[in-house]
């Protein structure tokens, strides 16, 4: 599993207590481990790109009909058990970034204080585990599918927390309940479709609680999160609206993305009695802005036949807010303001249109555990976009048929070491 770099045993061989230490289970001070995925995705829709996360610049379809950029990544994790109570972890991942480059970024870096076996606190960058597999989102080997269903997982594109968190586990007879509370901030960069411009989202006053109840092979997770999110790229548009008196201010107040309170609710359950598994998750994010309010959920089940585990997924995203707005009324405006007002209305509606990501996907696939620590997966997805929806596709090209359907074929190799 995690390969020992410097073991206490090694150090101990230099001391007189070597004989005792040799009997001890391997206890290491530093260890290194890692994971990775090499994946190829084919999309039959060549007028848009399919990506596995909103922070990817290119994907399968328009940029390349077969793309390795969607699922491929490589991560390395360094852990240090500094004392029995203090440990540190650093995880670095190289994958496609918002700028279509692969320079590695720090996924997590934190210091953990294990006060008791059931209570711990961490400071630094940690996973914001609001969904069942959010915290292992990038560890393909840990997941049954080629990737978690984007219909739910794309709802919350902020997956880390720079701050502190505390975790408390309570044993309840045969069951255990873990409550994790986190406060902090995060900053993420996103690509702009068909452009090299970068959009920065700043999330502050993040607060989340995640409660996991486990009993035997049943896991139930409930989560709530809130944050004040600012996307400065929208400011020029809404600042301009504010020049148009009360009706402009009204529109800006309704839609702007400046220090906007975003709330998230999630509920998930997993059932894994051994040979088969079933999972169901539901989540809702209310952005109360131009970003839209969305609901996502999926059902998935699989059955293990020796080394092969076939599975199916049904997943949906629904945008609960409108993709258009009448905008400024041009009737009462002086004629020289009508054209700029119309331009603003068009800008608002273009932005609102991209918030409509309603889609549903049926997937079938199989995981094959080829050798220890390596699996190969094959998955087929059939996605139908809602009316007026671009779904989660990006880099739309002229002539893209809104409301169309997309077929994907994905093959991945996952490994851990």
């Amino acid at each position, binding site marked *: 599993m995690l390969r020992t770099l410097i073991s206490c045993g090694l150090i101990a061989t230099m001391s007189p207590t070597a004989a005792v230490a040799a009997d001890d289970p391997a206890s290491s001070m530093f260890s290194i481990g890692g994971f990775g995925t090499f994946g190829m995705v084919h999309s039959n829709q060549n007028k848009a790109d399919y990506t596995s996360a909103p922070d990817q610049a290119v994907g399968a379809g328009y940029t390349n009909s077969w793309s390795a950029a969607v699922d491929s990544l490589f991560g390395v994790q360094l852990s240090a058990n500094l004392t029995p109570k203090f440990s540190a972890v650093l995880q670095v991942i190289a994958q496609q970034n918002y700028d279509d480059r692969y320079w590695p970024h720090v996924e*997590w870096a934190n210091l953990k204080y294990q006060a008791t076996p059931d209570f711990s606190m961490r400071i630094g960058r940690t996973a914001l585990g609001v969904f069942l597999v959010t915290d292992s989102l990038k560890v393909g080997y840990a997941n049954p599918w080629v990737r978690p269903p984007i219909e739910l997982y794309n709802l919350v594109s902020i997956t880390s927390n720079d701050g502190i968190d505390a975790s408390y586990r309570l044993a309840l007879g045969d069951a255990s309940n873990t409550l994790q509370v986190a406060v902090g901030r995060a900053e993420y960069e996103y690509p702009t479709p068909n452009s090299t411009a970068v959009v920065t989202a700043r999330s502050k006053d993040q607060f989340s609680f995640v409660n996991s109840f486990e009993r035997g092979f049943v896991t139930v997770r409930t989560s709530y999160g809130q944050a004040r999110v600012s996307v400065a790229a929208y400011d020029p548009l809404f600042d301009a609206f504010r020049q148009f008196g009360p009706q402009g201010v009204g529109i800006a107040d309704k839609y702007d993305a400046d220090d906007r309170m975003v709330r998230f609710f999630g509920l998930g359950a997993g059932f894994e009695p051994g040979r088969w598994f079933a999972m169901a998750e539901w989540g809702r994010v209310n952005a109360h802005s131009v970003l839209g309010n969305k609901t996502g959920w999926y059902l998935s089940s699989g059955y293990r036949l020796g080394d092969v585990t076939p599975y199916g997924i049904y997943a949906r995203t629904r945008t609960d807010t409108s993709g258009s707005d009448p905008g400024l009324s041009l009737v009462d405006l002086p004629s020289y303001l009508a054209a700029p007002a119309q331009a603003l209305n068009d800008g608002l509606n273009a932005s609102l249109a991209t918030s409509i990501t309603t889609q549903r996907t049926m997937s079938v696939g199989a995981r094959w555990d080829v050798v220890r620590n390596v699996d190969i997966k094959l998955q087929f997805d059939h996605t139908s976009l809602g009316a007026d929806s671009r779904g989660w596709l990006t880099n739309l090209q002229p002539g893209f048929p809104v409301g169309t359907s997309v077929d994907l074929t994905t093959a991945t190799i996952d490994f851990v070491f």
Partner: protein
Amino acid sequence: MRLHLTRRTQIASQLLGLALGLCGSGARADVVAVVSSKSAITTLSANQVADIFLGRMSRFPNGALAVPIDLNDGSVERDRFYAKIAGKSPAQIKSYWSKIIFTGRGQPPKTVHDDFDMKKYIAANVGTIGYIEESMVDASVRVLN
């Protein structure tokens, strides 16, 4: 005729081999969960053992700290132990721990090299829990049913 006999012999020997194989696996000693004979723990359900080994529980039902000890990744007894207590394949166990390790949520149990080290370590350390072949059980450890 000779050919016919040979073929029958082949089938017979294949069947015999199959039967022996089955007997062999049936007679194979079970892997059992053990604690030190000095431990106060006398019984644990398979679920409780699984919870301790999968890091879901840190204490025995009597409140004492439980420290699980594993055999090295790749050992046959280890694979059979997890199949027995949790119904999980080696890949499922690996995938379970990958999830926990790579989120910094925890570390898998510490490991010892083989059954002999396991028995010696468990016997000497009250509070630890491990597993060995049933045939290796002696007075130094207690089997948990």
